[in-house]
């Protein structure tokens, strides 16, 4: 959040409501314009880190529909708004203002075109599928593992043998800091020392939408097969995640998975639910 900007927008709105209206009477149409601009400014500049453009467009589209619905939900208001537009266009008194508006609209389009042409070229944004569906089974170092039913064998120890479990967690920690933290970071926030060089950025495990909503067998697949093992239906894909099946044993992978959950405090998604 960019509190400063948000406060400034709110202050401007209050100013319009209580001060400006003493001199000029604002009709509903003007109010709609003011709300539109205020919300646009809030979405574009009031939030930190900035929202992606696609989201701002989506939000503003919803707001536009809502504002139009509000204006036209009342016959009187709609009539007044229509009349004020007509009056603006036909009354002599507004002739100059009308000319200015007629100039400003194409000028705004031109300015916008100019500005967007002046930006450094960027690859187009794409709707990347971050969590593609896993295959139903994989071959791991020669043996087949069924991902629909596979369970983390270490999970059971959590309640039956705490000492053994703690040892596995310690192993997981070691594996993580030997292999993963370069990318996924000291605190698993996805900002390790290599991270800035990659696109997509390494996953942030503290985020509620990564490991917190996945099953452990899903993580096993992603860690074992890495980016090279991703299904083709989820292109475009240029993830740098290595395929760890070449470096870690099955047990080591389950251990590091346990550690990811222990460290972040999340629970994995349970398998299957009552039918």
């Amino acid at each position, binding site marked *: 959040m960019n509190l400063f900007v948000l406060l400034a927008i709110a202050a401007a709105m209050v100013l319009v409501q209580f001060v400006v209206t003493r001199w000029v009477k604002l009709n509903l149409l003007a109010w709609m314009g003011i709300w539109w601009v205020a919300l646009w400014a809030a979405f574009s500049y009031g*939030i930190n880190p900035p929202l992606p453009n696609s989201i701002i467009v989506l939000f503003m589209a919803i707001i536009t529909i809502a504002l139009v619905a509000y204006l036209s*939900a009342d016959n009187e208001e709609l009539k007044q708004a229509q009349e004020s537009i007509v009056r603006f266009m036909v009354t002599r008194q507004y002739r100059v203002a009308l000319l200015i508006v007629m100039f400003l609209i194409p000028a705004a389009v031109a300015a916008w075109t100019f500005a967007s042409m002046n930006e450094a070229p960027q690859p187009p944004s794409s709707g990347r599928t971050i969590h593609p569906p896993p295959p139903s089974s994989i071959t791991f170092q020669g043996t087949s593992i069924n991902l629909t039913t596979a369970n983390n064998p270490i999970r059971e120890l959590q309640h039956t043998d705490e000492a053994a479990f703690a040892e596995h967690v310690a192993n997981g920690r070691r594996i993580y800091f030997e292999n993963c933290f370069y990318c996924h970071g000291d605190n698993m926030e996805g900002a390790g020392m290599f991270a800035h060089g990659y696109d997509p950025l390494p996953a942030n495990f503290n985020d509620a939408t990564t490991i917190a909503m996945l099953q452990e067998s899903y993580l096993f697949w992603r860690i074992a097969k890495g980016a090279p093992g991703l299904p083709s239906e989820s292109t475009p894909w240029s993830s740098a995640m290595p395929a760890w099946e070449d470096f870690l044993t099955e047990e080591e992978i389950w251990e590091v998975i346990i550690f990811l959950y222990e460290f972040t405090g999340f629970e994995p998604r349970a398998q299957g639910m009552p039918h």
Partner: protein
Amino acid sequence: MLTIDRRSWLLRVPLGILVLVLVALCSEPAWAAPQEADPEYRALPFISSRVLMWAVAELHLMFAAFVLAVPIFALVIEYIGYKTGDRRYDQLAYDFTKLLSVSFSFTATLGALLTFGLIVFYPALTQYLVKIFSWTFLPYVLLFFLEAFFLYAYYYGWGKLPPRLHLFLGVMLNIVGTAIMFIANAWLTFMNTPNGIDEMGNLTNLWEAINNYIWMPINIHRIIANVAFGGAIGAAYGAFKFLGAKTLEARAHYDWMGYIGIFVAICALLPLPFAGYWLGVEIYAYDQSLGITLMGGTFSWLFIVQAVLIGNLFLAANYYLWLSMARIPGAERFRGFIKYLLGIITLCFIVWATPHSLVATVEEARAMGGSHHPILNVLGVMSAKNTAVNLLILTTYVSFLLYRRANKEATVSWAKTGNWIQFGIFAAVVIYVVFLGVYGYFVDAQTRIGLSQPQVMSVLFAMVSVTVIDIFLFKNAKSRGEIVWGKISARSQYALFFLAITFTWLMGLMGYVRAGMRQHWHVYGVVRDTSVDAFTPTLGYAGGVVSAIVIVFFLLIAIVFFLAGLAGRKDWEPKSGSRWSKAEASATVDS
């Protein structure tokens, strides 16, 4: 009379074809011994057979949904008319029923086409499904005949049969229709979440194959969605007639019809999100890949489109209610509330439509510190969505409440207290729902899914308790004047069209999602799609096909509306003195 009799051949021909086809299917030699050389697929010259089947199946579904839904609420309306003795209800129910006969013919024709298409273009798949489900075809055909009987008896018997017998026919029509849908749902849900078969795909237990993971969720989701859809189409018919009405009387009647249609649609819309949620949970439970394909993978983008459409449905429904207040004296009092209701709806709409994975450029992603935005992320997950949709439902309910009260003034002594209690219930439920939503961020996935239940229950509680209080509160209320039916702007009628189109689109889209999530499988994990069409189409292409289907559907519905309108026309009169008038004069006797 003549026109009506002509129409029934429309039904007989496709029905005959369907039966022939099914008989051919069920009799052994047709499929039991396929030669090696039998093709697995056949292709068409100009259009891909997949797109053709896609369109036919979806159109069949749309008409079937309509044909199943209308009798549900027509019956309820007829019953209200019977109980209250108010003839207008009876007339209204009949007006809805008029749309049925032609739609039923279309449904049957499209169903026959679908069956044909499956046999011709997908022989191997069809064979497999027939092998699994052959025992269900017999009751299906029988029920289909009964459906035809009850539907036509219900329609032609209107006003001719004793009221109780007629109501009974309506009940039977609904039971039979629902049973038909349940059977057909077994076939299609089996393709998504196959059950009751062994490793080789051979049937081990028919009941398990029928009662697979998503059979019941789809049954329920469809019944409710069908009613919503049927109500919306019925309302569109009302709007269509309203806009073309020449007399004030007709305007009033069709304004009322549009209102009732959309009332039905909204009532059904309210529980839909929960039914959908249950469906989603069962899909996830069956197979995480399927669940992830749906909610996290490629198809998740379609759920954004779904969310936008649903947000629009809620917005348009409220909009219609607000415009409707123009016809009630005294409604001006509530105008001030609209801003706040709209504000809540917009906020919830935004939360509801916020995607889980974002479309962002590399620079934008860098700025966000990853592919997830720290603030949007909060809005993108289930807890936020459930909270938003619960509040959307409550807000829509409040719009209804205001509409209901528009011309009433409470006269009971406890009116003030009653209002405060209602307000207190709302406030408590809103706080509770938001609290659960926020709490959902601090618990694991399993508990979070469980939280949606108390949310729903509290919203239901609020709606029921407030309604009950309202009924007593406005007993013997002073009226500020009667509702002036027909006194409403044309905009509201276009809102009804908008709702009908949005529902249809939503249905086409979700139908595609249901079928498409199997990806390169016909029967998920069992029968692989080895045709040239095994790829999953791009979202844009799929969107294009779905939109084209929606357009075709409305062209067909326009025909239905036109034909239904004929029944109410004056008899054709020859210009006096023409050849016809003399011939007619002698012929009218025997018609």
